[in-house]
């Protein structure tokens, strides 16, 4: 009797422990992450309290939290906080969209056309090697203190990253797939739609992740250089009044915006790349 009953539950038990072990590990990782955060922020706060760190230069966690609460409740020195966040998101988002669309279109066009790519690749390399933030000054002179100059800077920041990836993605398209599509009867346009764009898509999406960060940099640096509103101006104002807590508080707001954008992009990516093999649980 015992022999017939005992062996059957064994595999189930083993599965149970495996699942349990994975869960325990996930909890451990979470706990350690929290510990690191507490250690760093707590150390900072403690350092200020015992006098090791000067809060005038380096801020203070409790002061930053107070500042954030104050901004949310009473608004900032340059107007309501929501307005500043929205202006920066608008500039970065518009720059991101324009830059990404232009980058994708140019990348695919040049990737598909050997002559165009031979002619233009040299200029793109040159343009890419210029530190593009410098262009911000020109844009402000040319386009003024409004949103246009910030959007232009964000476009320039985003364009080259997306372009380079789209171009590379098109070039990396599997030669076998291209030959197959051609023999199955695809025209050039059908080839671009059915083979080239799908295979470049994972490259393009990867670049979009990076480049939203660049769009934010473009918008904020633009506001820094000259603006009437926005998170960059908020930071510049805080800097001007030696308010380090204000600088840090603005930084946290920007980080939250960047993380939300990142999360949205990941969702879009998962939706577009459903055909990819699923990653294993261990990852």
């Amino acid at each position: 009797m015992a022999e017939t009953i005992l062996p059957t539950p064994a595999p189930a038990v083993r599965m149970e422990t495996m699942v349990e072990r994975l869960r325990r590990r996930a909890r451990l990782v979470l706990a350690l992450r929290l510990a690191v955060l507490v250690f760093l922020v707590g150390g900072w706060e403690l350092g200020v309290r015992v006098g090791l760190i000067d809060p005038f230069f380096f801020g203070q966690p409790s002061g930053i939290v107070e500042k954030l609460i104050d901004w949310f409740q009473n608004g900032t020195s340059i107007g309501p906080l929501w307005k500043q966040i929205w202006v920066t998101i608008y500039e970065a988002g518009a720059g991101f969209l324009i830059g990404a669309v232009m980058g994708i279109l140019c990348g695919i066009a040049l990737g598909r056309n050997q002559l165009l790519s031979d002619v233009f690749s040299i200029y793109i390399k040159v343009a890419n090697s210029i530190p593009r933030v410098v262009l911000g000054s020109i844009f402000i002179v040319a386009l003024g203190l409004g949103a246009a100059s910030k959007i232009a800077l964000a476009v320039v920041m985003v364009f080259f990253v997306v372009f380079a990836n789209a171009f590379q993605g098109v070039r990396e398209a599997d030669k076998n797939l291209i030959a197959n599509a051609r023999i199955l009867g695809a025209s050039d346009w059908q080839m671009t739609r059915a083979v080239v764009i799908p295979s470049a898509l994972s490259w393009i999406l990867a670049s979009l992740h990076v480049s939203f960060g660049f769009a934010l940099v473009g918008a904020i640096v633009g506001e820094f250089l000259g603006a009437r509103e926005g998170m960059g101006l908020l930071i510049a104002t805080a800097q001007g009044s030696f308010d380090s807590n204000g600088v840090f508080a603005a930084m946290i707001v920007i980080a939250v915006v960047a993380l939300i954008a990142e999360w949205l992009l990941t969702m879009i990516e998962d939706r577009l790349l459903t055909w990819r093999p699923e990653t294993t649980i261990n990852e």
Partner: protein
Amino acid sequence: MDAITPTAVALKNVARRFVTPAGEILSALENFDLSIAPGEFFAIVGPTGCGKSTTLGLIAGLAKPQAGEVTLFDAPVDGVDRRVGFVFQQDAVFPWRNVLGNVMAGPLFRGVPKARAEEMARDWINRVGLKGFEDHHPHQLSGGMRKRVALAQTFINNPQVLLMDEPFSSLDVQTRELMQEELLQLWAQAKSAVLFVTHDLDEAILLADRVAVLTTRPARVKSVHTIDLPRPRDVAKLRYDERFIAIARNISDDLREEVLRARAGH
């Protein structure tokens, strides 16, 4: 002579050369002659890297010869021809499309209305035994199943000339045998001319009406052997048939000579 017997594929005195990155000219084919009759199953064997795939590329219109003439049904090849189908060595099904999308790709590219293309595709998915897998993506299928998708994708276009570049070389022995069996059945219905490139002599003899042995690079046709084994053939049994063994012994002497020369670096 040529005017009397029609050919599905003919290569006359063809040469195909490449320029290597070092600037040297590498000759893949020289003085290459070959002709295949409509409806014939023709196999090419030869040492690896001898220019077998190059030959297929020329017939498919993916590349142009530097000398000589390549014809399809006695007309010169000019670009990709609609009557040609190609099954690749590596997976060439579209990983971002499901099975149905892959099989109906050809008709859609060629302007067949969507409803009709889908109907055709479902029929071909049935014929290659993939019913129930229409919504699967290639990464969810086994190697043999992906090959079936590739076959359906090609046969749905009803090719009169079917080029196959070591299509089953990546499959395990059992799956390969099944696929060979299946290919012979599809071919018997489609009645297309087949040019089947392989490095596996047994496979060539089991499937083909004629087998050509190529020389090492630059490739020429060394000899052509007629395989007079009766059809329909049972691939699994035929392997142990005495007639098959006699033919295989005969051709393999021919082939071994070339393989040894290739290894010696000629």
